[in-house]
């Protein structure tokens, strides 16, 4: 494969350690500046590297890998939505349009860094090698959670908005007590930022100088409510007000998200205190499979953002950089195989019986659980008999 645009970040550590000094020069200024800045960008909407992209350098291998992650994540969305329409899933929340924000960020931290997600981070989950089955479990209604956080280092989804940011903060307090250099990454949405918990977490993490990296996917909507109803200032400005270093990034530019996250994570890891990244992105689909976005948003708004599609942009970049058709054909084949897996895994998903929940509610013996489990089993067996 010929790489016509070869812009490897010379001093990039494949372990996710050091970051480019050029980057540090640009982003280092954020530390003590509470003012708003335009979103950081490395590749523009046409797939052209920006001046900054050129000067900092773009790692083509990483771009290819992330592009592939994003394509698969989007395919998960379309398959899952179809499965929902067929009645195989009860509900699905699309990450469509937010793939760059998710893939770019999760790939910029270490696998050992714990993640506290909201509920829309399917692309994050895929990058952490969580099986599609485990991602869909919850939305098929067979379980409240999909995966084992001990394995993936991704905590189970939070559906009560914003609560996970406090869990991340407490976890980070534990990290510090353990004298570990882990970073704790937590995701939340622009709407959730209005919750008391999120603000308590920003403040708590700042006051304690804890290693938390807050990542807000500002997808411009909270169901039907636009961001300006939620807040008056951009979130990276609010964060800075708390003493949480605020970064602002084009969330549809995977490379920019990656670079900013990597930089911020290393700052946090090094003891600089918490940081927040506000990624400007867009929820190209409705809020969920039950939502009808036509009720509240204009075609124009959507059209404008469709032009900024993060996958289209990265593909353009890769093609300009000389990545050949064969690569995309391979990827298309991987995608089809992946889609088949998704469908198969979904349909094969079976849940526990209610009997299991009596054992899962308490760690230790509990008389009410014992009595009611026996009652339930009696009823079940009578019904079966």
């Amino acid at each position, binding site marked *: 494969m010929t790489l016509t645009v070869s812009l490897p970040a010379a001093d990039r550590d494949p372990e996710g350690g050091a970051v480019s000094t050029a980057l540090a020069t640009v982003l280092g200024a954020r530390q003590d500046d509470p003012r708003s800045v335009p979103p950081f960008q490395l590749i523009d909407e046409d797939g052209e590297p920006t001046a900054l992209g050129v000067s900092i350098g773009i790692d083509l291998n990483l771009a290819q890998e992330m592009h592939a992650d994003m394509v698969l994540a989007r395919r998960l969305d379309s398959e899952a939505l179809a499965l929902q329409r067929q009645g195989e899933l*009860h509900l699905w929340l699309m990450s469509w349009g937010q793939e760059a924000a998710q893939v770019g960020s999760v790939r910029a931290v270490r696998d050992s860094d714990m993640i506290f997600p909201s509920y829309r981070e399917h692309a994050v989950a895929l990058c952490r090698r969580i099986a599609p089955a485990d991602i869909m479990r*919850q939305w098929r209604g067979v*379980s409240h959670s999909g995966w084992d956080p001990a394995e993936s280092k991704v905590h189970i989804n939070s559906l009560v908005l914003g609560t996970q940011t406090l869990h991340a903060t407490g976890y980070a307090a534990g990290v510090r007590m353990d004298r570990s250099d882990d970073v704790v990454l937590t995701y939340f949405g622009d709407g959730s930022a209005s919750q008391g918990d999120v603000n308590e977490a920003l403040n708590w993490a700042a006051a304690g100088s804890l290693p938390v990296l807050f990542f807000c996917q500002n997808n411009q909507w*909270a169901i039907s409510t636009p961001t300006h109803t939620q807040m008056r200032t951009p979130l990276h400005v609010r964060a800075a007000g708390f003493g949480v270093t605020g970064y602002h990034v084009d969330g549809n530019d995977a490379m920019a998200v990656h670079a900013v996250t990597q930089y911020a994570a290393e700052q946090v890891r090094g003891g600089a205190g918490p940081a927040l990244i506000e990624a400007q992105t867009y929820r190209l689909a409705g809020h969920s499979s039950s939502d009808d976005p036509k009720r509240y948003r204009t075609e124009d708004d959507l059209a404008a953002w469709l032009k900024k599609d993060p996958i289209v942009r990265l593909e353009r970049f890769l093609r300009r950089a000389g990545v050949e058709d064969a690569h995309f054909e391979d990827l298309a084949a991987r995608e089809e195989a992946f889609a088949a897996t998704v469908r198969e895994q979904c349909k094969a998903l079976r849940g526990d*019986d209610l009997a299991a929940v009596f054992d899962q509610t308490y760690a230790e013996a509990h008389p009410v659980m014992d009595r009611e489990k026996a009652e339930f089993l009696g009823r079940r067996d009578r019904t079966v008999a």
Partner: protein
Amino acid sequence: MTTTYSLGAAINAGLRAAMAGDDKVVVMGEDVGTLGGVFRVTDGLVGEFGADRVVDTPLAESGIVGTAIGLALRGYRPVCEIQFDGFVYPAFDQIVSQLAKMRARSRGRLSLPVVIRIPVGGGIGAVEHHSESNEAYFAHTAGLRVVSCSNPDDAFHMIQQAIASDDPVIFYEPKRRYWDKGEVSTEPTRSLHEAAVLREGSDCTLVAHGPTVATALAAADAAREDGFSIGVVDLRSLSPLDVPTLRKVAAESHRMVVVHEASTFLGIGAEIAATVTESCFYDLEAPVLRVGAYNLPYPPAHMENDFLPDIDRVLEAVETSLNF
């Protein structure tokens, strides 16, 4: 004169009537404006009354109730929507320490005519935190009124009565019955806190509210086919309870089974059992029995049919009661 409405549409009509009748009535909550709420209960209101009176709020439940209190202190009558039952807890402090107590702590000077609408309960295949029955928390809280509607007619009138009340009211809407249709009369037949005796019965009385009223009626019908006369009471109000009506039916039928979707442990059934037994001790031929959800966190949707009290479990309890 009556009209046919679904339960959700009846609340919508009730809200519209209340807003038309008093320009201090303000509807507020997440996505209640343009979207008309996730269940469309506030559909069309923003068009009719404007964005000042139908307010899409920031995503913060404590903020919703806290600012509603402030609005009420300024003379407004806010009707807050909590998007789903499981999302009322961030507002718990504002509800139990502020909303409920303001009148007593101000020595009766300040009234807070705030209504908090909560779509409640399970049975719609929803994800976690979207199917909870948390009425006992609020019913245990002095200073609040808690009501639960089960049919379109009540829904239409009770929401208006709740808004008209100078006390704070927690207003439960049985989400799996939103689409059930029924006739709605122009005038209410009952006050807000009266229970409705839907069926008289001499062998046993089923007491239910909200979503389980239909379950109780179906169970009563099934039992009738087996020759038993089973009464059904729709509580309508959970706080205060209509104790005289409960006492009367207990004295007449000598047996009582309470049915609700909440956990039985300290659920409203516990209070009814304790109260009715206290006042009708010699009339009862069997202890008041309770049929509720198991004492578990609400489980994943694919188990909810096993979890929720259904006709069979109600009939099982009736049988236990009859065999005492």
